[in-house]
């Protein structure tokens, strides 16, 4: 029996696997502050928490540090499920609240970026793979490779500087200029969103493009494409009915699986644009060494990535009838 990442595995098996991963992540989150070097109270509460030497004993008891490990873990789990993810001394609010609020803004950027990036990469990859080694392909591939090689936050910085600072076409960051409502607010939001969305879409497209292009190239070498040509089908039909259709499954899978990488990139880009999402949260939490906040962020991110992977599995089964 083999636990092998293969889309054909049963759904139940998949759910089990993901649950195990989730538990491991939670366990990691639980263990890390308790085994890391340094004062465990500080590791748990973060460096923003202020307390004196006398308080330590009381706090230890309160945090349950004297209880056996499994009981601590039980308490921890209970806390998680009841919404008690700890307190952020940096933001002066419960971690779940702080994280939740920031997560929303990150999703506002990520979700459109995924769709746009996939579209861009899909079409560009299709064309580049089909017209392999032509100037079009070379141009596209070079362009995307260059984008792929650049650190995301660096592109963000360059764009911000150029389009915002020098040209003044876009705002300098943040989400809104404030004091607006209704349609004006929405339009203002889009205006602020434009640059960060562009950056994220670009580098997601860059990664997906290379995968898509490789997929298309290998599909072009398949026998059924040769057969399609032998049948006298038009080029357009082959391109869209056969090649595109067959490259969708891998593309979707890659998109969902690379969600983790995408998230990491978004975090970095947000920092540059002062976009009030998870990125800024983590950046500030790191600076303040607010551990509960970082842990909460990590947990939420891990859960999101797990969900994305599960979505990938489901979609793959729909797209490839051989796995049904």
């Amino acid at each position, binding site marked *: 029996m*083999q636990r092998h990442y293969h889309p054909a595995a049963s759904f139940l098996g998949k759910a089990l696997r993901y649950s195990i991963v989730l538990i491991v992540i939670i366990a990691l989150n639980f263990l890390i502050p308790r085994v890391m070097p340094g004062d465990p109270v500080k590791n748990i509460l973060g460096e923003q928490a202020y307390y004196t030497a006398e308080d330590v004993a009381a706090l230890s008891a309160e945090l349950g540090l004297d209880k056996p490990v499994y009981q601590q873990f039980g308490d921890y789990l209970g806390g998680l499920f009841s919404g008690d993810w700890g307190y952020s001394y940096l933001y002066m609010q419960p971690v779940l609240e702080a994280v939740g609020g920031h997560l929303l803004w990150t999703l506002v950027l990520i979700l459109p970026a995924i769709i746009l990036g996939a579209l861009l990469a899909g079409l560009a990859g299709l064309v580049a793979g089909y017209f392999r080694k032509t100037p079009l392909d070379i141009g596209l591939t070079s362009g995307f490779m260059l984008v792929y090689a650049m650190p995301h*936050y660096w592109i963000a910085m360059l764009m911000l500087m150029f389009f915002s600072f020098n040209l003044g076409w876009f705002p300098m960051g943040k989400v809104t200029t404030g004091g607006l409502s209704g349609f004006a607010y929405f339009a203002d939001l889009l205006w602020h969103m434009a640059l960060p969305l562009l950056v994220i879409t670009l580098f997601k497209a860059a990664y997906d493009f290379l995968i898509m292009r490789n997929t298309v190239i290998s599909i072009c070498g398949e026998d059924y494409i040769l057969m399609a040509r032998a049948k006298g089908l038009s080029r357009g039909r082959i391109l869209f009915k056969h090649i595109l259709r067959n490259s969708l499954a891998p593309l979707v899978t890659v998109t969902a699986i690379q969600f*983790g990488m995408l*998230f*990491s990139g978004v975090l970095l880009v947000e920092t540059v644009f002062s976009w009030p999402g998870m990125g800024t949260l983590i950046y500030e939490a790191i600076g303040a060494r607010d551990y509960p906040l970082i842990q909460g962020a990590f947990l939420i991110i891990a859960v999101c*990535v797990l969900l994305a992977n599960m979505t990938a599995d489901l979609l793959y089964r729909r797209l490839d009838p051989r796995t049904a």
Partner: protein
Amino acid sequence: MNILKKLTANKLLFFGVVLLGIFVLSAVFAPLISPHDPWTYGQAFLHPSAQHLLGTNDVGQDIFSELVYSARVSLWVGFVSASLATLLGVAVGIWAGFRRGWLDNVLMGMADIFLVIPALPLVILLSVYLGPSIWNIILVIALTLWPGTARVIRSQVITIRQSGYVESARIMGASEFRLMWRHVLPNVLPLVAAKFILAVAVALLLEASMSFLGLGDPSQKSWGMMLHYAFSRGGFVQNLYWWYLPPGLCITLCILGLTFINMSFEDRTDPRLQRILDR
């Protein structure tokens, strides 16, 4: 002479090696190349001049010298983490692919977990507690990179293991270690090389990202750290592009070089041509 010929024949490989080579040389010969000691303080925020080719940063250190010396740390972290990750990944991959059974399940289970967990957040989480030393960074990066290699090597090993000559060697009584060392490993090496190069690129970017976020080692200079200071210490808002442009450019060029090298490995044979010949 033969190597040179091979190199120039494959343009992709050539450019990749050249690009990477520039920075490797910069790292090795840093004291000779850089005009100043990058650690000496001086007048801050100076614009580029003959004295300071790229100006100075917020504490007056010469940016060009910083740039040259940063190649050391950035490349060092990249290569060492990748080496560690590859070694670990290959060991696990070969062992799991060879032994199969419950060991395989456990190892691959672990690999899967690390694969699913997004790299940067995990790295952040661990580094925040472990503190900003270089070795911590290297260890943490290696930890996130090994599963990718392990999985791929394992698949390859399974395929090779089922091939004829390995089976016959086994029947002839070769020990397991010998089998792995003599038969499986040489066939897996090309894949390992490709994965290694990829790992270096990923490690490079990870280190840069971590440093940018403020988790880097402040006692060292790396391109990521330069960007971190450029962003947070006023280089950005003052539009001192000579400060934040070059480090990013260096990272980009290194990654490009590595990508070229990687692509040249894959570009060996045209699969369609092989099939025509096989017919």
